[in-house]
């Protein structure tokens, strides 16, 4: 049975570096992906993810399993990402929301090798369309969607990361998904005639 995050962190606290490596392996991809969606820069996302792990390591001696490890981890990541966005904005270097994705960003996303080129291009265009819609969301909404949709955190956990109430979070998520529904209407829009109300409700559930 896999050891829990808390267990691994407590072992790291006791000086077991192999346990920290396991945490690193477990969370590097979700963290880099999360940070990339927030700061919209692959290099900065990697740097920030490294900084998150470094801070976790530095704090190992003071670690107390009072909250979920992921809440703590993504709280650090969120703070760092928001600071980065603030700094970038301050330097007037923020990328335009409408700008196409940079080449290095696309290189990081690996397509399946068996796909045809035209199919890959179509999928890339579609992915760019979806990505630009997500990235155009306000910061807090974007973070909420990332944690809800991609990290599958529960509402209580996301509310702790964003330091808001659960009801405020539900409203925030609704506004974010409503914006995405409108922005991505060509992809999500239904035909004129509506299907039966019972069809598709549960099919789209995340869990």
């Amino acid at each position, binding site marked *: 049975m896999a050891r829990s995050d808390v267990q691994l962190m407590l072992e790291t606290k006791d000086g077991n570096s192999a346990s920290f*490596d396991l945490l*690193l*392996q477990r969370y*590097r*991809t979700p963290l*880099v*992906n999360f940070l990339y*969606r927030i700061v919209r820069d*692959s290099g900065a*996302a*990697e740097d920030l*993810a*490294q900084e998150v*792990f*470094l801070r976790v*390591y*530095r*704090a190992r*001696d*003071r670690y107390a399993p009072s909250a979920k490890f992921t809440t703590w981890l993504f709280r650090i990541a969120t703070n760092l990402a928001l600071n980065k966005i603030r700094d970038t904005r301050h330097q007037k270097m923020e990328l335009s929301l409408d700008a196409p994705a940079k080449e290095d960003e696309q290189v*990081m*996303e*690996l397509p399946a090798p068996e796909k045809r080129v035209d199919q890959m291009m179509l*999928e890339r265009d*579609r*992915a760019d369309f*979806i*990505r630009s819609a*997500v990235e155009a969301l306000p910061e807090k909404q974007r973070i909420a*969607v990332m944690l*809800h*949709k*991609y990290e599958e955190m*529960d*509402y209580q956990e996301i509310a702790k990361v964003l330091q808001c109430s659960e*009801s405020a979070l*539900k*409203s925030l*998520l*609704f506004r974010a*998904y*409503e914006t995405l*529904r409108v922005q*991505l209407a060509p*992809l*999500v*829009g*239904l035909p004129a005639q*509506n*299907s039966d*109300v019972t*069809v*598709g*409700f*549960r*099919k*789209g*559930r*995340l*869990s």
Partner: protein
Amino acid sequence: MKGLFSSENVNCQGISAALIPYLDGRATVNEQTLVESHVAECPACRTRLQEFSRLFGVLDELPPMQPSPSFDVRVRQRISAEPAAGWFGWLLPAPRLAFSLAVLLGLFTWMGKFQSPGMDNTGATATTQSEQDFRAIRDLGVLENYDVLKGFDALSELPVPPPRPATEDQDNGDGGGQL
């Protein structure tokens, strides 16, 4: 447990925040009942719910970004470059506190450096002043005592020392010149 809504007459706006928990399976029983009863009668919300459901599928298409192959190596490098926690290791997680303490220490040192001589002068001046006052008080009795002052006339009768010869003065004054 009550959910977001308690009223039976839930409108479209009131139901909106429960649509996402309903789709991700985390709605309370109350929220679930309200959403289902509302969308059964509201075509607009029914459509919206279906579009949300499709939106979740569309968002799944977004490929995750993979960390670079050197990611782990760079994290380990940064960790190994961390200074070992020593006596002041507890200050490392609180750089602002460390900086504030350093500034305060420097400020006190600087103030001490420039204020100490001033304080010494003040003390010396105060000592001198008090000595003068003491002498004045001490001599006050003598100056007011006529008998004593009268007796001082005897001092005027002291023999006046003979003036030194001029040559001797000159010799003394020009001594350096001769050398």
